[in-house]
């Protein structure tokens, strides 16, 4: 009977490794507890952001170090924490377990599973707060991150390592853009992290289900701190998501992190700061509210080749009230990020979806990373659209328009139509190039505005069925050379004949 004996040996070895040493602890006593904040005496050698554990098993983070007490933010419920309870320092700065196995999981900001599957057993832990990569380790943004949304990829291109803000009122499709972008990263070798901060649990569940159905969960991690979680968890969520992203970035991978949304994050931090009795400033936010977001978004980076060449792209979301982008938090985050995608409810209700305001949306660094072919076909689009908007407003007054103006307005209408796109239907870059090519070459000028959508769908179908190799060439070369241009011309002409037939 060899097997059981070896098993006994194994068990014995395992147990012999266990040494029953007395433990030396550093403790304090709870003085007061309430609203998720505990004040404790003792703990004289504790560090800022150090984890502590309470006698009842709850854990907390030390945020305030005062003369004779410390302020502790409780991670979880503070209901059972009573005065006089012992609190023990752990000597560990707040961190999160990181591992490849965390892909496809739904976790809370402490890395504990929320999807009912096994715990994440990883020896590697990343600190939640970390200094952003230094200047010397970075390089400028040079690779595109395709969102699969025509209006964004053509007009406001995003590069890997960029920070692009998605801003707009409630119900304007901010999360929809973020989700479409994640769905579009399938087969792109980009790891996506969706951080839900103060969202409804039902919304998070819906998003996870959608990711699962579309096979997007394989390359996605969801970090969730819902509206029902304690505000300390909401405050930590984006940093935890970022730490997970940094783990993959350090391995040379491309990572996309979505913070949905930072307005609620600012609220959560305001609550914690006020309860810790930190002095309030404008709109009752604490004085370091700018640093709160700048230190988070600075961690987005494109690392140089010598440093692994990984990247972390950040898409923070900000919800505005009645379109007021000049409020405190929106202006802060606008100034931190490398551009913003501005969504308007007026456009949304006019049926222009995504409800992108082309005039106010910008991408400060992404155009350097835009694929050449896209740059070629979309180069003039932005200017044309702006001119169209101006002319359209003007044309409302008079009906007598010269031919050139009328043409420009007609082209503008079709451009607007082409840039409309349904939810959860991200489009490959070669398809985007094809339809924008058709638009700029005037193929759509004879198509009625209401028919543009149908025409486009048929064109994609035709190209996918009959001209697959042309699409493959565009994708491979990611450029529209004269040769490819003439081939596209021919293909579209051929399609027009079948369309009219």
């Amino acid at each position, binding site marked *: 009977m060899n097997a059981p004996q070896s098993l006994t040996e194994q068990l014995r070895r*395992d147990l012999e490794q*266990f040494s*029953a040493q*007395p*433990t*030396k*602890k*550093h*403790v*304090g006593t709870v*003085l007061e507890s309430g609203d998720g904040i505990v004040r404790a*005496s*003792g*703990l*004289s*050698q504790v560090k800022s952001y150090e984890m502590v554990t309470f006698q009842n098993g709850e854990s907390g983070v030390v945020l305030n170090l005062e*003369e*004779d*007490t410390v302020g502790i933010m409780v991670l979880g419920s503070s209901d059972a924490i009573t005065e006089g309870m012992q609190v*023990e320092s752990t000597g560990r700065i707040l961190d999160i377990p990181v591992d490849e196995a965390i892909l496809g999981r739904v976790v809370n900001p402490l890395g504990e599973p929320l999807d009912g599957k096994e715990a994440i*057993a990883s020896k590697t832990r990343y600190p939640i707060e970390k200094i952003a990569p230094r200047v010397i380790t970075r390089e400028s943004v040079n690779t595109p991150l395709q969102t699969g949304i025509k209006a964004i990829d053509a007009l406001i291109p995003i590069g890997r390592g960029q920070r692009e803000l998605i801003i707009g009122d409630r119900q304007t499709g901010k999360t929809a853009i973020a989700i479409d972008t994640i769905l579009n990263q399938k087969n792109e070798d980009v790891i996506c992290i969706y951080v839900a901060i103060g969202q409804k649990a039902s919304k998070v569940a819906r998003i996870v289900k959608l990711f699962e159905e579309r096979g997007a969960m394989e390359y996605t991690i969801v970090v969730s701190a819902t509206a029902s979680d304690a505000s300390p968890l909401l405050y930590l969520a984006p940093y935890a998501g970022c730490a997970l992203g940094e783990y993959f970035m350090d391995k040379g991978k491309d990572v996309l992190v979505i913070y949905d949304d930072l307005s609620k994050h600012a609220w959560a931090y305001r609550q914690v700061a006020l309860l810790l009795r930190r002095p309030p400033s404008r709109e009752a936010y604490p004085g370091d509210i700018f640093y709160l977001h700048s230190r988070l978004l600075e961690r987005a980076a494109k690392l140089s080749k010598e440093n692994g060449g990984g990247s972390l792209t950040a898409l923070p979301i900000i919800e505005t009230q009645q379109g007021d982008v000049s409020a405190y938090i929106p202006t802060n985050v606008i100034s931190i990020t490398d551009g913003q995608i501005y969504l308007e409810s007026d456009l949304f209700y006019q049926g222009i979806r995504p409800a992108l305001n082309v005039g106010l949306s910008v991408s400060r660094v992404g155009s350097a990373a835009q694929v050449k072919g896209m740059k070629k076909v979309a180069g003039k689009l932005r200017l044309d659209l702006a001119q169209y908007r101006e002319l359209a407003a003007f044309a409302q007054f008079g009906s007598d328009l010269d031919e050139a103006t009328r043409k420009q307005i007609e082209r503008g209408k079709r451009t607007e139509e082409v840039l409309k796109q349904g939810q959860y239907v991200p489009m490959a870059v070669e398809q985007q190039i094809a339809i924008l090519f058709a638009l700029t070459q005037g193929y759509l000028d004879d198509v009625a505005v209401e028919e543009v959508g149908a025409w486009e769908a048929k064109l994609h179908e035709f190209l996918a069925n009959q001209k697959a190799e042309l699409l493959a060439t565009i994708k491979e070369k990611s450029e529209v050379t004269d040769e490819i241009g003439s081939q596209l011309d021919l293909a579209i002409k051929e399609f027009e004949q079948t369309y009219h037939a």
Partner: protein
Amino acid sequence: MAHYRTQAYVEAAYALIQEGKKASDVSQALLRRLSKSKQLSLLPAIIDAMQIRESLGTKIPVAITIGRDFSKAGAARVEATVAQAIGRETSIETTTDSSLLGGIIIQQGDDVIDASVKALAASLKNYLAHM
């Protein structure tokens, strides 16, 4: 006006009395200070703590919790060892807590040495769970 906890007031007042300040002057100053910081409700606690502090003198308070009562000789040995380790005169208060299942916990200030059977069992459980 900064708020301090009871022990801080006691230590400060005790230090002043040790310096040779008159007890009545110190208590007046303390009362004024408490009234300014609206902490007069702490007074009973401060008086109690002051009495304990006086009885301690320069001794270092050490709390010992044991799982099972031990013999007088055993207690003396523990006291001697603790006093030797700290290097100063100690005032030891010993309590018995049967939930420890055995062993000893020694606390001096913020530092705790936990050699109870309960803690050892917990660390064994943790070890087995993460083996």
